[in-house]
């Protein structure tokens, strides 16, 4: 069994079986990362291009490491906005890159739908590494993977996502992934950061953090984009922190074995208290490690190696 499509554009187009397949495949690659020689020949001779229109050292490094551990050749391509020839479309850029015989293009772009547009225009497999506020599917997959390590049965878990839901691709991909696997999803944010009709995803919405944390199995804290300040989404970082920062005290409302997740980088003291980030409940560093395994599993499947 493999994946139906040549690309991974978002979680919304994956079936729950496909999600499970990616997670299972990734497990065996997690083991590779624990070995002395962290390398397998699965993608030898293949080329992976990291095409990052937005800077993101973390995500790019994770993909790069994953590709290298699979023995692929990796090219990093970060067209700064200035070096893009005016008038050149994303598709033009991508076709140039495809002519480098790229087997997989990993795309990070500020426009929603950029990965889908790219995938329609090239033969290479496209992995969406974040497109605007739309999706960040590998983040959601690595979050699921991390949850399953401690709580193997996702179905029935209560997962609370806290922060700027409206502008978060991590939130969207996680909502799609978690609801597909049968988790109960709660969203907590000031109403200015809740997008219209989000309840139609089958989630419940809270403006009170305390209420949203009640009995939660997993808490995903989103990074507050500080540039939202001054655009009337919230009055001050001080007040945001007072209302929405996850503190030890507030965490007590959740289950005793609650897992605390964060896609990074952290604003310590804004959305998450430093002592929580460093506590036993936090799995933030596991998320980073698992990111490599999940991206290995995914690239392995997309390269066709997963086909029987």
């Amino acid at each position, binding site marked *: 069994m493999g994946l139906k499509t040549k690309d991974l554009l978002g979680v*919304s187009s994956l079936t729950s079986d496909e999600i499970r397949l990616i997670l299972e495949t990734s497990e065996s690659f997690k083991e590779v990362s624990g070995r002395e020689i962290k390398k397998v020949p699965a993608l030898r001779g293949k080329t992976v291009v990291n095409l990052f229109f937005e800077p993101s050292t973390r995500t790019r490094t994770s993909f790069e490491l994953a590709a290298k551990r699979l023995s692929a050749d990796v090219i990093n391509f970060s067209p700064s906005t200035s070096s893009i020839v005016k*008038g050149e*479309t*994303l*598709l033009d850029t991508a076709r140039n890159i495809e002519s480098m015989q790229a087997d997989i293009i990993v795309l990070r*772009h500020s*426009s*929603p*739908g*950029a990965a*889908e*547009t790219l995938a329609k225009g090239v033969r290479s497999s496209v992995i969406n590494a974040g*497109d*605007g*506020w*739309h*999706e960040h599917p590998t983040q959601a997959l690595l979050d699921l993977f991390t949850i399953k390590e401690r709580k193997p049965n996702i179905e029935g878990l209560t997962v609370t996502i806290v922060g700027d839901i409206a502008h978060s*691709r991590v939130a*969207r991909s996680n909502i799609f992934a978690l609801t597909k696997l049968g988790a109960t999803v709660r969203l907590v944010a000031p109403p200015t950061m809740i*997008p*219209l*009709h*989000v309840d*139609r*995803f089958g989630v419940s919405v809270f403006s009170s953090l305390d209420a949203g944390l009640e009995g939660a199995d997993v808490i995903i804290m989103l990074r507050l984009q500080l540039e939202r300040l001054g655009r009337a989404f919230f009055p001050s970082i001080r007040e945001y922190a007072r209302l929405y920062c996850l503190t030890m005290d507030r965490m007590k409302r959740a289950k005793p074995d609650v897992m605390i997740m964060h896609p990074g980088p952290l604003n310590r003291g804004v959305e998450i208290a430093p002592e929580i980030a460093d506590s036993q409940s936090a799995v933030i560093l596991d998320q980073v490690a698992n990111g490599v395994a999940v991206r290995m599993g995914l690239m392995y499947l997309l390269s066709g190696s997963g086909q029987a």
Partner: protein
Amino acid sequence: MNMLIRGGTVIDPGQFHGLGDVFIRAGKIEAIGEHLSIAESDMVELTIIDAQGLVVAPGFVDLHAHLREPGFEHKETIETGASSAVAGGFTSVCCMPNTSPVNDNQAVTEFILSRAKQAGKANIFPIGAITKGSEGVELAEIGDLFAAGCVAISDDGRPVMNSQVMRRAMEYAQAFDLPVVDHCECLHLSDGGCMNEGFVSTELGMPGIPNASEDVMVARNIALAELTGARLHLAHLSTAGSVRLTRQAKANGIPVTAEVCPHHFSLTDEAARDFHANAKMSPPLRSAADVEALKEGLADDTIDTIATDHAPHAIQEKQMEFDKAPFGIVGFETAFPLTMALVEEGVLSLERAIEKLTSAPARAFSLKKGTLAVGSDADVVLLDPSHSWVIDPTQFHSKSQNTPFTGWNVKGKVIKTIVAGTIVYGSD
């Protein structure tokens, strides 16, 4: 040169509806009626057109188009725009001032009119800017624009945010009895959005433009029209709220007219799901409930006219990422079949559909067009309402092909277009 259009179903909204002939002499409608007998002296150089099975109507009048010249000739020129217009049955086109330079002074208006004269084909009526450079600060020389031939004023695409400036423009325009046309959009509420704000934008992670962005400006403009008594024309209504507000304003006797574009009653925001910018326009495609409200507004005459908002863009511009691509689609050559779908659906009778493309828009801007009355300019269109065809933008006469209707199977075709007694589209 004389012309006899024989045996068609003549529909001159509110004036004539039945089998008949239309006789044209020297570019004017000379006679209309059943089995016209033509004098011997008129038989010389007489072109006879057999219109059996066709509808003969006044040429369409479009109150809202972007012809892009001067400044954006890679998208469209007045010549290609006029060719596209007449291919869509439009014999009179009002062109918006958001050219480069902006049509905010006599010289630009005169340039447009001289280019239109060279191009021939359609009648072009420029719309002047409300403010200098459409910057929303100082009034343009509206008196000069009027004297040069502008038929209305608008800052379409860059709506006047300052309500006091808008009030003054409405007051001032009354000196020339000019309609003030507003693209009703609160740019603060739109906030860089690129599609309708709703469930689809939430799912796609796309910055949204709420209905309220339009509604608050419709409400503002109606209040200002009530205050000033100016002739207000509301461009491209897209929301249920603005239909409701306009209906109420008309009931209260406020001098307001309104238009709707075919794409707004033919598509919803679901069309944005494939992230192609051919589904990106301003105002954006809305929800199914809004589409229903627009149809009700057309049916009860809250919405007076159908206008195209023809907005050509080059292929590479529309191939850009959805949020970065420009707003707008071409509209002339798809307007009639999309309007015919409303007739099929029973929203409008054929005669009322034609009215909203002819006499109603002409009335809104006081144009002596959109009629087959004896003595009027012989701008005539021959239509086959039952002709089925597939929309193929490569066949468009426009320079641009940015349409979301590619491959649509539609009914209703423009067969021939006549301007001032001369055939400008369709073989003779």
